[in-house]
């Protein structure tokens, strides 16, 4: 009875988060402090980071979600339209203005800000004793540091997130306050021009660095200044100091990076006390614990950390701009990234880059096709179902068939597990995918559009056929990609298999095992290694070319700047991955060919080529054809190599159909319906291809 009385006024509050390590420990302690002074009990649930967003978006609308959840604010726009969050029940106060701004949408504050992050200037204190305060000073200092294979400055210049500091300093922005983006502006052009000057023209920075490469350079004492966030300081092998980003000398304004805010949000129908818990965690005691124990840059204005990094972050936050939480920002970023890469490579001027960014943004954010009338579709589906049922009924009127079905009732039981697996793993996703292709999706909004996606794709309604975005263009690239690969795989694999049979080859088993290794290594690892090998400055391919062609002179060929070289890089990688399969198939097929046939041809006067062409090849062909069909289907859909090696560069021209479908689904505004229509069309192409190939093989036409 006593227990009941106690629980009547108290509620259990469930909190979801994705914190790990010290941050998680600090959260647990802060929640403990709340527990001690409140009648309510708190249950903390840690959700793996990778599944966090999708878990929130599926669980909360079904009522299985938490009362509070902690997340970064950049998806807030989507979540408010989806109704995942409620306006706060306890108003936040005493927070950094920029942090509050970040969680405010249309005048409503949606979350209690907990902590924030932004890019700042990190530098090697053993190299320089102070950080520059202007870009002119930075350039001068960095130049002095760029000696003996060292670099003065490194940052991911073509990533819009890292470019934001310069962009804002030149008065440009990703999204307009009233919605939409204006990228074709002199401000954007000026920011891109300055970014190119800093990253390329001054000769103080490495080309196209990734985050991992910058970390490695820093640890090897090969770079002095880095534009990056607090995460970069973790696990560094060398001492590192932080300072606010410098003032851009040309405009007199400071570089203003994006501020991302971690906040705690209330879910509709949250338990009693949730609002108090959120406020407790965000300010005062809760904030102090998180700052001291968790090392978080908390937004509570009354807390001053003694950690120099957190103090620098607090200072940087004053000039930082809240990261837009409108889902449309992804489109602006995608468009900016494309132009930034082109400008860095010199394939586009800054002005042209700004114009192209606008064009590309307009494509990505183009409105959904008009809503279609679903009734004819319902009628069609209904007709199909009725037809199928009617046909089944007609069949079952045959008594003999009925008797057979009854007699074999147990047999159906045996195939049930396999049938169920196939239904769940193959049929269901296929039908779902096909159904999705009849819808259009943008920013959480679904709309039935009938065949509009297919018509848009097939007729290239939104851009010219010659654009790399058009289906026809990509199909052409895919066919070129597939045929070039299969030709190389077969010829190389077959040549090696024939070579391995030569009597003078020693250690045959060792060679065979070694040559299968490329096949045994997971292909994404191989793809990443080749991507590194093709790096313009640090790649082994360029180093080797320099050694061979220019006796050690430097070659800085940017493999991903033009279609032909980028396509070659992809081709080389996939050939490396693909020839072992054809070699193994050929070796197997050769075993079935008696050696005496080739000897007979030799005695009959045939040279090696004639004997191969007229005796060995005709007997290999039947065994190789199914492998070629299989290999071409794999290559047609070889997503990993395209995505990881060229990434579609330059300007999506090396994308193949499957990677293009991925782009539309996941990096060009979540147009799931459009991507699904792509997938259905890929299925159609491959269906026609494999049916034709099988028929030709069956009829011995080829």
């Amino acid at each position, binding site marked *: 009875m006593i227990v009941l009385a106690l629980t009547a006024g108290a509620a259990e509050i469930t909190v979801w988060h994705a914190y790990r390590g010290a941050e998680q420990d600090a959260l647990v302690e802060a929640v403990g402090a709340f527990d001690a002074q409140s009648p309510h009990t708190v249950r903390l649930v840690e959700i793996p980071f990778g599944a966090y967003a999708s878990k929130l978006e599926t669980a909360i609308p079904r009522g299985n979600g938490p009362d509070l959840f902690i997340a970064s604010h950049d998806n807030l726009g989507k979540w408010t339209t989806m109704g995942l969050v409620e306006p706060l029940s306890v108003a936040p106060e005493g927070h950094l203005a920029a942090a509050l701004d970040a969680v405010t949408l249309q005048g409503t504050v949606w979350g209690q800000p907990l902590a924030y992050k932004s890019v700042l200037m990190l530098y090697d204190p053993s190299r320089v004793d102070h950080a520059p305060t202007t870009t002119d000073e930075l350039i001068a200092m960095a130049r002095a540091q760029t000696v003996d294979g060292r670099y003065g400055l490194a940052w991911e210049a073509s990533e819009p997130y890292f470019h934001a500091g310069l962009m804002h300093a030149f008065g440009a922005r990703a999204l307009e306050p009233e919605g939409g983006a204006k990228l074709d502006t002199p401000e954007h052009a000026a920011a891109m021009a300055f970014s190119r000057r800093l990253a390329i023209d001054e000769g103080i920075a490495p080309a196209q660095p990734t985050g991992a490469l910058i970390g490695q350079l820093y640890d090897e004492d090969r770079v002095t200044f880095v534009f990056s966030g607090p995460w970069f300081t973790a696990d560094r092998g060398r001492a590192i100091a932080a300072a606010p980003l410098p003032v851009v000398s040309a405009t007199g304004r400071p570089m203003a990076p994006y501020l991302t805010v971690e906040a705690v949000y209330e879910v509709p129908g949250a338990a009693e006390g949730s609002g108090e818990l959120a406020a407790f965690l965000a300010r005062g005691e809760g904030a102090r614990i998180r700052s001291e124990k968790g090392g978080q840059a908390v937004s509570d204005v009354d807390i001053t950390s003694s950690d120099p990094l957190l103090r620098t972050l607090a200072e940087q936050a004053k000039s930082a701009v809240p990261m837009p939480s409108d889902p449309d920002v992804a489109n602006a970023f995608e468009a900016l990234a494309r132009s930034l890469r082109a400008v860095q490579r010199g394939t586009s001027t800054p002005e042209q880059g700004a114009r192209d960014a606008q064009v590309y943004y307009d494509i990505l954010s183009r409105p959904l096709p008009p809503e279609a009338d679903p009734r004819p579709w319902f009628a069609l589906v209904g007709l199909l179902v009725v037809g199928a049922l009617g046909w089944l009924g007609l069949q079952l009127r045959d008594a003999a068939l009925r008797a057979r079905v009854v007699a074999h009732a147990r047999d159906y039981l045996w195939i049930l597990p396999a049938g169920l697996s196939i239904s769940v793993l193959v049929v269901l996703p296929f039908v779902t995918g096909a159904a999705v292709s009849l819808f259009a999706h943008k920013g959480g909004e679904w709309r039935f559009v009938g065949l509009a996606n297919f018509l848009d794709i097939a007729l290239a309604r939104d851009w010219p056929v010659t654009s790399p975005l058009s289906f026809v263009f990509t199909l052409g690239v895919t066919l070129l990609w597939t045929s070039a690969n299969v030709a190389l795989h077969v010829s190389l694999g077959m040549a090696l298999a024939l070579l391995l049979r030569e009597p003078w080859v020693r250690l045959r088993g060792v060679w065979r095992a070694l040559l299968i290794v490329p096949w045994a290594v997971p292909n994404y690892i191989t793809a990443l290694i080749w991507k590194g090998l093709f790096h313009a400055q640090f790649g082994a391919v360029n180093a080797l070319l320099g050694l061979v062609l220019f006796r050690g002179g430097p070659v800085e060929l940017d493999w991903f700047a033009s279609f032909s070289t980028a396509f070659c890089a992809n081709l080389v990688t996939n050939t490396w991955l693909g020839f072992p399969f054809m070699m193994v198939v050929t070796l197997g097929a050769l075993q079935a060919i*008696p050696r*005496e*046939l080739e*000897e*007979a*041809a*030799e*005695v*009959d*006067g*045939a*040279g090696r080529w*004639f004997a191969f062409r*007229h*005796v060995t090849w*005709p*007997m290999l062909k039947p065994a190789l054809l199914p492998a070629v069909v299989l290999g071409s289907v794999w290559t047609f859909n070889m997503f990993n190599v395209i995505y990881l090696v060229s990434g579609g560069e330059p300007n999506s021209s090396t994308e193949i159909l499957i990677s293009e479908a991925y782009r539309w689904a996941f990096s060009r505004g979540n147009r799931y319906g459009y991507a699904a229509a792509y997938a259905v069309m890929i299925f159609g192409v491959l269906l026609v291809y494999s049916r034709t190939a099988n028929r030709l093989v069956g009829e011995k036409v080829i």
Partner: protein
Amino acid sequence: MATLSFRALRKSYDQTLVLHHVDVEVGDGEYLVLVGPSGCGKSTLLRCIAGLEEISAGELWIGDRRVDPLPPRERNVAMVFQSYALYPHMTVRENMGFALRVQKRPAAEIEQAVLEAARMLELEPLLDRYPSQMSGGQRQRVAMGRAIVRRPDVFLFDEPLSNLDASLRHHMRVELKRLHRRLATTIVHVTHDQVEALTLADRILVLNAGVVQQFGSPRELYDRPANTFVAQFIGSPSMNLLPGSGSGGEVRIDGVDGTLPLDRDGAFTLGVRPTDLVVKGEAAAGLAGTVDVVESLGAEALVHIQLGPHAVVAQMPEPTPFSAGDSVRVGVGVVHAFHTDSGLRL
């Protein structure tokens, strides 16, 4: 058409010598049979002629050309493989015309040559079949035809009859003989069957463990075998060998009662062909023995006789008066004498 000569030819794999010093001249148009037990090196020698194996030392000449440095295709020899090695994806016509097609001869000439060979081998109705649609005997003839179309200097046959059944083999043996007479081309034929060797060959080369045992006409080999190996290998049933020792016009056999009236002194190996054993009743003179088994072959019988510790076989016309268990005396007709240790003919 050409002569074929092996000059001090040797062949070894790594450290193993598989052919010791083959030094043989084969005349133009001669039918040479290489015979010996399996693993004796006869197929290796054939493949050396074809160029499918390199020789390790010595020289190989076809006519006035030294061919051992040449690849197979420049030697102008034609080979019939034991498995026939027909190209499975080509018709009989294409198989037979292959060598001419390699030489880029005009289509009409190829067709003419194929038809001629097909007529010779009665293959005309089969010209458009694939190898998989034919019987073993038919395939054998196609393989022959493919060789004939070439008109080579030398034919090489690697156990061509071994995959045929007994009656077909006999038939093809006769065919081969006829073919050789008609083509008058040098033939080297490998077999392990001494009957094939005796019936087909102009001359026979007997090999054992890579060493030439004897080279001569079938008659020479049968009448004057060079050693006990040839003596036992040629002729069926094999020659009986007995350890003998003679003195004063009498020869005794170890462990056997009775003597043979032969004029040879000292220990030697006595060789007697089954047809030269004379079996008589118990009362007669000769070696004492007991009949073990009698095999009747219709016109003739093989009588297996136990002479003390030695088993011998006598061949005689049916009906034979002897049956198992009879005590007999054995005399001899033509005898061969071999050195006890080396086995060489004395």
